[in-house]
Structures are given as structure tokens and as C-alpha cells.
């Protein structure tokens, strides 16, 4: 597994290098700015969109995603001036909130006006304000286990965390039991 810096000149935000096409962080925002990708996604998940967000029109969902992605992008780009990623990321579950190292976290635009944001960036927190982005998703359901595309993101988080345990310099006793997920 390879990691690359999320922002040039800063050591606190890292991203998993996925493949030659890009890294986890950049690929997410490419998708969230591509109406083609979003059209296919919302067509496939139209029932969740209707049931959980009461949105019928796919164009509305795409437009909201564009807007929300812009806001989230701004929050990440603001990081060098605040150096406080802990404000952006929050523990994924109560289990993750108990520990301080190698916890799974999510970032979203916490102040979305129209409806709660469905965009998520997933990351492993190595230590205060230090994160590795493993991926992200459009999360329309209450839990990640309910849909394949979010379940896959859980697997990515766990895979990255396992890699860090096997190869890293971290204290194994401090790890969260990742079989527990709220």
C-alpha cells in the first residue's frame, strides 16, 4: 500500500494511492464533479434518495452533490491555514471514538443547509490531526453495511488499518476492535 501527501508541503493529510489514475482523495472529487458518474449512481440508488431524503429528481441530487462537493473541497483546502483536521473528521462509530490511534473517521460538510450532507470522506486517524484518506462515498442510508458501495469503503478502511498494524510503528494494544461497527 502506498501513501501520498494530500496537500503539497503538509505532513498531516495523506491519501492512499489507488492506481495510476489517482489517489483516494482526488478520485473522490473527480466522481463528485462528474454528472455522468452521479447520474448512474442516483439512478441505481433512486429508492434510497426518495426514502431517506425525499428527493425525486436525479438532477436535484446531482446539483446538490456539486454544491456540497464544492463546500467540502473548500474545507479541505482551508486546512493549511487552520491545521486542525480534527475539526473536519469525526469518529465513524462509538467504538472508534473510544481510542485515539488508528481509528476510522469520516469527514463531511457538517453545515449543509438544504439537507444533511450525503458525501463522506473516510480516513484513518494516525494521531491528533494526522489522517490517511482511504476513500469516500455518497451515503444515503443510515448505516454503511446496508449498501455494497459503502460496505466496500468499510473494507478499505479496515485494509488500510491492517496494513498499518502489520507494517507500522504503532502500538498494537491501542487498536480498536474493528469488527464492531455502529
Amino acid at each position, binding site marked *: 500500500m502506498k501513501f501520498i501527501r494530500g496537500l503539497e508541503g503538509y505532513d498531516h493529510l495523506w491519501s492512499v494511492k489507488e492506481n495510476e489514475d489517482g489517489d483516494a482523495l482526488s478520485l473522490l472529487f473527480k466522481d463528485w464533479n462528474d454528472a*455522468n458518474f452521479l447520474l448512474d449512481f442516483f439512478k441505481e440508488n433512486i429508492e434510497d434518495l426518495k426514502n431517506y431524503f425525499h428527493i425525486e429528481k*436525479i438532477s436535484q441530487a446531482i446539483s446538490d452533490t456539486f454544491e456540497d462537493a464544492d463546500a467540502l473541497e473548500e474545507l479541505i483546502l482551508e486546512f493549511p491555514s487552520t491545521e486542525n483536521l480534527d475539526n473536519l473528521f469525526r469518529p465513524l462509530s462509538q467504538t472508534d471514538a473510544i481510542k485515539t490511534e488508528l481509528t476510522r473517521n469520516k469527514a463531511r460538510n457538517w453545515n449543509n443547509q438544504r439537507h444533511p450532507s450525503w458525501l463522506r470522506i473516510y480516513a484513518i486517524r*494516525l494521531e491528533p490531526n494526522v489522517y490517511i484518506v482511504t476513500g469516500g462515498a455518497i451515503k444515503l442510508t443510515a448505516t454503511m453495511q446496508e449498501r455494497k458501495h459503502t460496505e466496500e469503503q468499510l473494507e478499505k478502511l479496515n485494509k488500510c488499518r491492517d496494513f498499518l498494524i502489520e507494517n507500522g510503528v504503532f502500538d498494537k494494544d491501542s487498536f480498536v476492535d474493528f469488527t464492531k461497527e455502529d
Partner: protein
Amino acid sequence: MRKETLEFLEKHSNNEVSSFAKEAAERKANNKWQKWSRHIALKIVDFMQENNFSRNEVATRLGVSPQYVSKLLSGKINFSLKSIAEIEEKLKINDLVEI
């Protein structure tokens, strides 16, 4: 940040930097005109949803390839007035661009 953490990350890195910030800057620079392109893309999405049309069906109606329809839907195409008028006419969409 702990020295060990940084050393570990750098050991598993190839000194590359994410293209995220560069792409974000490009998005910002193109934001004004791409808003129009996105607006047209979303009108086509409405047409597709209302009529239950696939990309292939839109392509047939427009007399273009499905790949070109994907390009139209990307929200990153710099439409000419002529192409806007053609889309309006062939898909029977009114006011693709509202002025």
C-alpha cells in the same frame, strides 16, 4: 506529529502529491462557464428521467454517439449556441439555457 509516524509514511510514499489541490484549482478557475455546462447537462438528465431514456436513446435522438452523450453529461463541455439549439430542437426541451 510524531517523528516515527512521518518516517513510516514517507517510507511508504514515492514523494508524489495528490492531484486534488491542482484539480480543485482548475475546477475553481472553470467554475463560471462550467456552471452553464452543468445546467445544460442537468436539463438533459431531467429529460432522460422524465422519458426513461438511456444514453443510447438520447444518442439516437440527437444523431450522435453514446460517447458524445456522456461528454454532454459530463458538465465540462463548452457548448456552441448552434449545438444548444440543436439539442433543444431534437429533444424538444425548451429554454435549455435561460437568459
